[in-house]
Each structure stands twice: as structure tokens, then as C-alpha cells.
């Protein structure tokens, strides 16, 4: 097992990374510590990044919502800044694992872990999320649609620390639907997030149907045209999904449920039922909506 580093500034973190062998970053540890203990991964050092101040801020500005990398799912659910316009993000936060793990599990840990079934990923994709990563070479912003490269693979360099996730300010209606085997904690068998911006821009994203989460950007579809284009949208989603059969579900089941969820989202947008009764602040957030 590795050594333990706990910098309190970014500069200290960069200095500690220099020449120390392989270092893995620790947020909530709910992926990292499980993998380390299983021996599935190894490293020379674990660096707890939660005491770096840049990772602890959550800000709503005129243009963006910025969520620091140390923010847990439960903290995001309790944050008044994360309003009902970010419903997919709220619902995914509430659907991840269970309330105990959500006290530790972070949004950025879920993103960096890059599991194709990670709950936050489809939600972040439809809300046009990006991450800001920093290293001794400087900062860069990476759109999440360009972030995931394979199962548990992403474009980060080993020395890049994600500081925050950034979403544009938006208005619209959206949701996150997750199918899982049991009522308790379980990764998604399949999941679908949808967001229909008030300007008519429609985005859908699917989890657990390919080696990375899938984003489908339909551009602007005026509300009056949604009924006529319903079938085309659903077929486009079905054609993009390339699931496999594994312990959680068969390929056929994933395809069928992915289609069903897509239909529910589009029909909810057409008949106006989607996104109207968003409950917040929520202790039992959108339970019916997330475990269909």
C-alpha cells in the first residue's frame, strides 16, 4: 500500500508530485480505496486533494455553475445554487450508490473514474459540463464530451488535478433515469439523461451502453416539431447504443430499457409532464424518477 500525501495548496501539490513516482489522487476514496485494497491498481503515493482550497468552492455566476472537486453528491444535493434547472445533475447525485456513500463520493471522482455506468456522466453531458484541470504547466478546460476515452479511461495526464466541474447557466427541462437490479446501491444496468433547453436545444446521453457514456446532440428542435420527430429521435438513440452482456444485464435488456427511457423522456417533453414537479430541497430526491 502506498504512502500518503496531503497538500494544502496547489503549489505544494505540484511540488509533491515531482519525482515521487506514481501518485493517485484521493477524493472520497469510494472507487480508489476499493481498487487499491483489491490490488486491482497500485501506486507509490495517494494524494488527498480535499484540503486544497481551490477544490472547495461552489459558485453560481451570471454565466456558469462551478462545483469544486471536493464536493460530494450529498453536498451538491443540499446546495441551493444547484437549482431545478440542473435537475439531471440533482437526480443523478441522488441515484448514485446510497446515502452513506454519497457523504464521501464526489462528482469529480465519478467523472475521473470514468466508468461507462457512472451515474453523473450522462447528466453532466446533457448539461454541457466541462472540467478544469491544473498541473505545474498551467490550467486547461476540457469539455466532458471530449473527456472519456474508454472503460475507466480519460484524457487527463497523470499529474493533472481536476479543480472543478463547470456548467453553463441554463434554463430548461431535464431528467436522469437509472435502471438497476435492486433497490439498494448498484451501478446502472442502463441510464438515460435528457435535457431540453428553453431555446429548443435537445441533448440525450446514455450510460452503460458503450465503452464510454454516449452523448447525442440533436440541435434545436422547436417544441411544435417534437411529436413529428419522436420516432427519428428514438431510433437515433437506439442505433447509437452498443451495449454488451455482462453480470448486470443482457445486451437485449439494455437496448430495450434504453429505448423505453428515451421514449419516456421524449413523451414527457411532449405532454409537458417532464420537469414540472421537481422536488427541492430534497432528502428523498426524485426517488420515483430515478429508479424506474
Amino acid at each position, binding site marked *: 500500500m502506498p504512502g500518503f500525501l496531503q497538500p494544502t495548496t496547489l503549489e505544494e501539490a505540484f511540488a509533491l508530485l515531482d519525482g515521487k513516482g506514481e501518485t493517485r489522487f484521493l477524493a472520497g476514496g469510494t472507487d480508489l480505496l476499493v481498487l487499491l485494497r483489491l490490488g486491482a491498481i497500485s501506486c507509490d503515493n495517494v494524494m488527498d486533494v480535499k484540503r486544497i482550497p481551490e477544490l472547495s468552492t461552489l459558485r453560481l455566476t451570471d454565466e456558469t455553475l462551478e462545483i469544486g472537486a471536493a464536493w460530494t453528491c450529498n453536498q451538491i444535493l443540499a446546495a441551493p445554487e444547484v437549482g431545478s434547472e440542473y435537475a439531471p445533475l440533482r437526480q443523478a447525485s441522488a441515484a448514485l450508490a446510497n446515502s452513506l456513500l454519497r*457523504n464521501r463520493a464526489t462528482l469529480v471522482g465519478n467523472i475521473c473514474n470514468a466508468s461507462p455506468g457512472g451515474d453523473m456522466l450522462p447528466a453532466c453531458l446533457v448539461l454541457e459540463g466541462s472540467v478544469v484541470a491544473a498541473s505545474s504547466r498551467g490550467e486547461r478546460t476540457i469539455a466532458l464530451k471530449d473527456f472519456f476515452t474508454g472503460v475507466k479511461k480519460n484524457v487527463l495526464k497523470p499529474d493533472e488535478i481536476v479543480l472543478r466541474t463547470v456548467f453553463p447557466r441554463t434554463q430548461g427541462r431535464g431528467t436522469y433515469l437509472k435502471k438497476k437490479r435492486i433497490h439498494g*446501491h448498484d451501478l446502472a444496468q442502463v441510464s438515460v439523461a435528457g435535457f431540453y433547453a428553453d431555446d429548443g436545444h435537445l441533448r440525450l446521453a446514455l450510460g452503460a451502453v458503450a465503452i464510454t457514456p454516449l452523448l447525442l446532440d440533436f440541435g434545436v428542435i422547436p417544441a411544435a416539431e417534437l411529436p413529428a420527430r419522436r420516432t427519428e429521435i428514438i431510433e437515433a438513440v437506439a442505433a447509437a447504443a452498443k451495449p454488451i452482456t455482462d453480470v448486470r444485464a443482457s445486451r437485449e435488456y439494455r437496448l430495450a430499457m434504453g429505448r423505453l427511457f428515451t421514449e419516456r423522456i421524449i413523451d414527457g417533453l411532449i405532454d409537458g409532464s417532464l420537469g414540472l414537479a421537481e422536488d427541492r430541497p430534497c432528502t428523498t430526491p426524485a*426517488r420515483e424518477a430515478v429508479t424506474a
Partner: protein
Amino acid sequence: MNTRPIHLTVNNQGYEVLVPEDATLLELLREEIGLTGTKEGCGAGECGACTVILNGKPVNSCLVMALECEGASVRTIEGENADGELSDLQKAFIEHNAFQCGFCTPGMIMSARALLDTNPDPTHDEIKEAMEGNLCRCTGYEAIIAAIEAVGGIQK
């Protein structure tokens, strides 16, 4: 493996202990401090037997590194009867037959305690949500929920 000193408060008592750099909070509590009430079931976040309250929030102590807890305040099952008498939750668990082997009970009680601290009168659904990370292989969950409801003062 290197050891490092850590300072923390457990059940309102201050400790300064040397821990291996790779120890978990669970190992710190059980092996360094000697509080063996907190249990290890799976060691992987699945069962909740290791639940303790860390800075006011219930967490799986098997997935927290000990050195993360410098300066932290931790509450464990041993803090429930600190004054020599069983706590309200402990008594309610006995009254409602809410355990059999008892292995999950320390974790159950810590999750329930954290809930009641922030929400003294939780609904049935709020209790279910707060307890969803704590698994019991013997008792079933109705008796456990009933015990927590009784302390929350809810009429069944």
C-alpha cells in the same frame, strides 16, 4: 510501512496515535485505539458495518484513510453509552428485537444517530433512505426501522 502521528477526537476524547500511512479509519479505531465496537464486514463500502460519524456525517470507515482524519471529530458505537447507560437507540433496538447476531448493529445505530441528530422526527421513507447503506443478514429491516421510528417519536 512508515507510521505518522495523528490527532483526533473520538467520542469527545482526544487521541494522539501513531498510524501506518496506509491505515484506514476503521483500522485506526480498532487496532490503534482499541475501540472494537465498529465492525469490518466487507472492507469495500458494500455493507455499512463499519459506519461511524465523521465530523457530523455517517461514513464507511473502511473507505476513509486514517491520515485524512487529522483534527477530525469521530463518533463510534462506544460513544452511545458513554455515561454508563444504554442510549435511547440502543434501548429501542433491544425493545424492538432489531438485531440477532448484532454484527451490523453498531453501524446501524451510527447511521440512525446521524439521521436523528439532523432530523429528530424522520418519516418512514427518510429512515429508509438514511439506512440504505447498512445491510443486515439476519433480522430484516422492519424491526430496525421500527426501533428508529420509536426514538424519533413517530406513531406507527
